[in-house]
């Protein structure tokens, strides 16, 4: 039967009903699965987040090397590759004192010939989805030193869950 003459659509809804006038509401979850965005410009809020604080404190003997590993693992439920920036600082001593900073800058109280420091994103233990950043310090100061490390990640939060660091 042709319901058109009665002013109804094929589902017997009035043609003037709001659901027929306005497009259906697309929820975020539906949109994610149904569309691929192509645009010259996109504005997204709350895309960048920060991780929890990471710290390390301990003693380092003369002529030993210390490797600090900051690793960010993606949430297991979505397992999308992380994209993040590490912010890391190391100090001689047991707290963050600017003049005793060892990495990434030498503070005024650090004799730079006494330490060898290098760092980078480590391909060796990268698994394709995590982020691995390492700093290695070699103590050639002639004595045992305390070292304090602190850092956090700035993380793109495009997944459904949060990443864990360790």
């Amino acid at each position, binding site marked *: 039967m042709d319901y058109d003459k009665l002013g109804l659509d094929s589902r017997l809804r009035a043609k003037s009903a709001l659901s027929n006038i306005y497009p259906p509401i697309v929820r975020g979850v539906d949109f994610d699965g149904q569309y691929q965005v192509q645009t010259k410009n996109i504005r997204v809020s709350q895309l960048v987040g920060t991780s929890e604080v990471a710290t390390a404190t*301990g003693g380092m003997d003369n002529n*030993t*090397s210390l490797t600090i*590993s900051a690793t960010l693992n993606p949430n297991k439920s979505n397992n999308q590759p992380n994209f993040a920036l590490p912010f890391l600082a190391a100090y001689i001593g*047991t707290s963050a004192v600017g003049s005793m900073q060892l990495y990434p800058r030498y503070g005024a109280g650090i004799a730079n010939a006494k330490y060898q420091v290098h760092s980078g994103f480590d391909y060796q233990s990268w698994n394709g989805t995590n982020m691995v950043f390492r700093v290695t310090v070699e103590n050639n100061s002639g004595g045992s030193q305390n070292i304090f490390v602190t850092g956090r990640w700035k993380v793109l939060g495009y997944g459904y869950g949060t990443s864990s660091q360790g």
Partner: protein
Amino acid sequence: MRGRNLLKFKNGSTFVIENIGIEVNGEEPIEIIDLSEATEKEFQQLQGKPDNKGIVQKIMNRVDKRGKDMV
């Protein structure tokens, strides 16, 4: 390494860590003590002196007691 832990290394070095990994002379720790039962004050005290055996023992006793209470 996730969470709060105390790491002991072969050469005698001790590190108190939170959400970060440490290797000494390219080697993993030989002993890992879970500090999740440490209070905030105890953790800060250990950060100031990682080889404070008194506080470590206090935390381990608390973990042991909790384990026995559960049994």
